[in-house]
Structure formats: structure tokens, C-alpha cells
């Protein structure tokens, strides 16, 4: 008789804990509500996000002015030479390094990273050299090392005779697939 009473009272006692067990289901919901943004929070986030964008855009405007200032400080406006390297998108060869000489004097050397090669393949042009060169007639010599589409290493060299005036010169070296051999060839373009 006493035992029956114990059981009855025990069940009644643990009935309190059923409330806890009821929380088990809410345990799933709780994890959501912990990170769930309120309307006020979302509004605050959107406002802050817009404020940050406004300031960052002002950074860009000032950054452009600072880029111009830097250029005027580091380069003379006369006899500026900018040399760009471009690779035909979809080319199967792989550039490794490019060296640029002016009248047999080293001007620039660059070894390409994986990311830069992807940037080239996707239509970007790499600034190989940007600086001042003496006016007059010069020879630009490009030496290129890489791997051809048939998996063999290649080395190519090409020279461009050019006359620099007072204006800024932009020379583009285009590395393009050769029509009749696996090695790429170098083409030049002077931009006006």
C-alpha cells in the first residue's frame, strides 16, 4: 500500500520534470532564436552596412586622388612608358617569367603566380613596367619563359624598336598561340 503511494507520488513528482521534457522540443527552436535577427537588428544592420559603404566609397574617391599624387611624385609626366602583358584567353601555353630590357639594360622581370596567370587568362593585362625612359629611339627586348601546349618548356625572345616622344607611351605585349607550332608568339601594339 505504501509502495503504491510512493509510485503515485513519484510520478506526480516527476510530472514537474515533464515540463523540462516539454522543453526538449523547444531546444531545436531555441538554437534558431538565438541567432534570429529581430526587425530592429536587421534595420540596424542594413543602416550600418549602408553607412560603411558610403565611407568606403569616399575612400575610393580619395584613393584615386592619392594614386594621382603618387604618380606625380614618382614619375615625371614626360617620357612615361607603360608596358602591359596580355595573354589570349583560352591559350594552352603557360607563362612562367617575362624579362624586359631597354637597349640591353634590364628594365623589369616578373615571375607569374597562379592567381596572376588566371587573371591573364580571364582578360586582365599585367603592368610589367611603368616608369620614365629617356626620349628618342630605343629597343625593347622581351624574353619569355614558359611551358608550351605540348608540355615542353619554351623560351622566346622578341625585340621592338620604338621612338619615345614627350607623351606617355603604352606598349602592349600580346602573347598569342602560334598558328603552326605549339609555341606562343609575341605581338606588339602601341596604344595612342
Amino acid at each position, binding site marked *: 500500500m505504501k509502495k503504491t503511494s510512493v509510485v503515485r507520488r513519484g510520478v506526480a513528482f516527476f510530472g514537474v520534470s515533464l515540463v523540462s521534457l516539454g522543453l526538449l522540443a523547444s531546444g531545436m527552436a531555441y538554437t534558431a532564436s538565438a541567432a534570429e535577427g529581430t526587425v530592429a537588428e536587421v534595420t540596424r544592420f542594413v543602416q*550600418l552596412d549602408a553607412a560603411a559603404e558610403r565611407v568606403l566609397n569616399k575612400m575610393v574617391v580619395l584613393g584615386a586622388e592619392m594614386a594621382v599624387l603618387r604618380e606625380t611624385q614618382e614619375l615625371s609626366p614626360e617620357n612615361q612608358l607603360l608596358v602591359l602583358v596580355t595573354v589570349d584567353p583560352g591559350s594552352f601555353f603557360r607563362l612562367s617569367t617575362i624579362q624586359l630590357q631597354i637597349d640591353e639594360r634590364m628594365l623589369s622581370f616578373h615571375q607569374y603566380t597562379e592567381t596572376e596567370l588566371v587573371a591573364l587568362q580571364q582578360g586582365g593585362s599585367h603592368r610589367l613596367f611603368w616608369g620614365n625612359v629617356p626620349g628618342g629611339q630605343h629597343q625593347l627586348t622581351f624574353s619569355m619563359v614558359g611551358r608550351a601546349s605540348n608540355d615542353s618548356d619554351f623560351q622566346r625572345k622578341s625585340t621592338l624598336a620604338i621612338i619615345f616622344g614627350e607623351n606617355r607611351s603604352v606598349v602592349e605585349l600580346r602573347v598569342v598561340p602560334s598558328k603552326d607550332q605549339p609555341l606562343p608568339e609575341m605581338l606588339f601594339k602601341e596604344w595612342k
Partner: protein
Amino acid sequence: MVLLRVNKPGRVRLLVSKGMLGGMVYLLLSAQTLAAPPVVWDHIEDPLVRAAQFDLLAGEPFEAITRLEADLAQGRIRHRPAQAQLVLGGMYLANGAYHKAVSLFEALGNSDQPQRIQNMAWLSLAQVQYQHGKTDEALVSLQRIRGELSGQAQQERLLLSGILLMQGQQFEQAVASLRQLGQKSLVRQLGEKSVWTTYGRFNLGVALFRQGEEDEGRMLLEELGSGAADTEESRTLRDKANLMLAYHYLNKNEPEKAQQYFIKTRLQGPMSSRALLGLGRVYSAKELHKKSLVPWLKLSTMGASDPAVQDGLLAVPFAFGKLEAFRQALEYYQLALEKFKSEVEQVRQAEAAVNSGVLADELTRAVGNQPVDQRWLVQDLPNTPGARYLWQLFTTNEFQETLKNYAQLRLSLGRLEQWSIRIDDAKGLTPVRRRELEKQVKDLQGELLVVLERIQTHLTVLAQETLKGHEQRLLGYASEVRFSMAQMYDYASRRWGDEQ
């Protein structure tokens, strides 16, 4: 409730983010999943625009934008300048400045870019807008896509569209979008096991449930929950599908049906605690209290910061009580109380750290140490006491985007300092121009500091609120345990009194 996924090589997490959906959850795309690559434009003519695009593609969006803006300001872009504006739009987008990108992309329709490139630009814009919480705008951007995209991009478009529609409670349209995702032609392109297709199927199952098409939704989730899974990500997704169905039936008081899905869920992995909790509930509902102790006892040994484990700590003494094993019940209540107290202490330590400003600094440091292409992704928790109570918050898009802004602004402060030195050192500047530049730097520093402080406050409040929620829950559980223990002692003393 929305789930998002966070990828790290060799690691997968399925995380709960936000937005209740009547108990049925769908998978949300995290910033990592949606990290839109820069738009690759077709045949950019001007070499200077291409040079800036190289900087962007090489992972330097700020340098790319400032260089191109500088070239534009100096009138150097002479060949098809309209292209430069589009490229600039893509650069702003890559820098997260989607408002500016939207205005520049307005010219897309009249541009010389092929339709496929225009479509990719709209998709990228939609992805960035979605990350910034602009769901309506993201849908508008998606609607500007004409025709179909290729393979992966088409899947991203349909999945994002489905999620945006589900967030807007437009389940019928969401179902239509997600059904397209399962089209055979598309699946063939990327393989049956494509993650996009798998996630899409999961979300389609949930959308069908919400639309009232329960049978079809269940079949889809069952298929997902029974299929072969050869990666950790797909195994976790399989578990999620089974748990989804199991809890659905458990809440409908159909424990037999629920059990068949619970037992398919792995006892390892991110879903294991919820599976153990649910399985115990199934046995409990069937009055099999001794059996319910098996999963619950296992659950109670797991990390107590997990809400499911906390529930398990209460469930174990409940089951012992049902079995009339009162001494063990008391022991396990005592154990639960100790664990809750210890967890409260951890949460309070985390609160103290957050209040002292450690959180923002640590997060910024963690962000700054990452490689360039993942610079703004929080993948590991900072070494803050009790930080595990915050990981869920850390992985929400809102938190990550805010953090990204915070880190960019701090980086900008450093740039402003460099510029200030450069202005000081500059030769040949007229006094007026020098003062002008100095003022611009100073003004911008002031503005930056104000926004930085607002963001820091926002992040801190978010963390404080999250921790407060955890603390209140733990304190509630602890007081419930104390109440139950008091009742138990009361009962024992009365019983002892009776015997005397």
C-alpha cells in the same frame, strides 16, 4: 529557422541561422558558398581598363578601383569608355559596394556585352545583395537575367531564387524554381551528386511540405536520407533530411514513424546530439523509459554548450524518475546542476570578454590573418572563453558582412595614415592643394571612426544578446533542477517521516 552551410576544406558544418519556417528548416547559403567571383567581362578594349581588371582578378579590388578611377579622372580611358563604367561596377561589387554597382549596372542592357556576361553580372549582384540582407533587391536582380545560364551558374541562380522566394513565404514559386534545379538536363551537366542539386532537392522537399504537398516532400527527403553519401557534406545533409522527417513525425505524435528516421541518422557528426535527443523522446513517448536512457545517457556525456545536450541532461533524471529509480534521478539532477553552473560561468566569462571589447579585436585579427581570397571569412572561433556559445552568431551572413565592413574600415584607417604621410612628404604641392588633401584625410578619418564605433557597438550588442539568451536558458534549467531536487528531498523526508 534557416540552415546555412559553412565550408572549410575537410570540414563541414550545418548551422542554424535565422528565420523560423514553421518547424521545417531549409538550407541557406552562407557567404562562403556564395562568394561570387568577380565578373569576367568580354573583350575589354582599353588596355588601362584591362590592367585594372588584372588587379581585381589578382585579388586587389581596392587598388583596381582607385587605379581605374584615377585613369578615368585623368582622361586616359579613350577606348570605349562605357566599358570602363561596367568594369568599375564589377569592381565596386567585388568590394561589397553593391549600391554603387547597381547604379553602374543600369547601363548593362544597352552595353556591348553579350547576354551571358550581362546575366553573370546580374547573378553576382543578386548574390552580393543577398549577403547584405537585401532579399527583395536580390530577387529583382535575378529577374533581370534573360534566358538560361550555363551549368553551375544556372544552379546557383535557381537555388538562390528558391531560397529568396521561400524567405518571402512564396512557396509555390519557390517550388517551381527548385523543380527547375532538378531538371535532368541540368543535373546531367553537373552530375547527380552535385552539391547544388542535393541542396536544391532538400530545399524543394521543405518547400513542398510548406506548400502542403507533404507526400512529395517526404519522398524527396526520404530519397535524400537513404541515398549513398561519399562526402562528409553529403552525409551531413543525409542526416539533416532524416532528422527533419523524424522531428516532423515526433511532433505529430507518431513516434513509430519518427523512430525509423532517427535510427538512420549517424551518431557522429553535427547532427548526432539532436538525433540522440529525439531517439530518447521516441522511446519515452512509447513508455520505454529504460530504452530512452541509452541515447540520453550517451547524449549527456557530450559537450554541454549544445542545447540538445542541455536538454539531455534534464531528460536523464526524468527517465530515471519514470523508472522509479529516485536515487539515480537525484544523482543525475545533481550532475546536471553542476554542468549548468559550469556553463553559466563560461557564458559569463564570454560576456566579460565581449564587454571589454576583446571580441571585435580578436575577430579582426582572425580575419586579417587569412589568405587574400578568404580574407573576410571567419572560419575559426577566436580564442575567447565561452566563444563556442557565439559560433552560431559568427556564421550568420549579417555578422560576417558587418565584420567584413569592420575589418575593411580598420584597414582604411591604416591607409589614411599612409596617405597623410605621403601628403606631408609630397613636393611641389600648392599650399591650397595640400590643405585640401589634409582636410579630406582628416574628415574621412573622423567619419570612419564614427562608423567603426557604431559597428563595434552593434557586434558587441549582438554578442551580448546571444550570450544573455544562453545564460537565461541555463539559469532557467538550473532553477528547474533545483526545484525538482527540492521536491525530491521533500518527498524523501516525508517518506522517511512516515516510516519513523
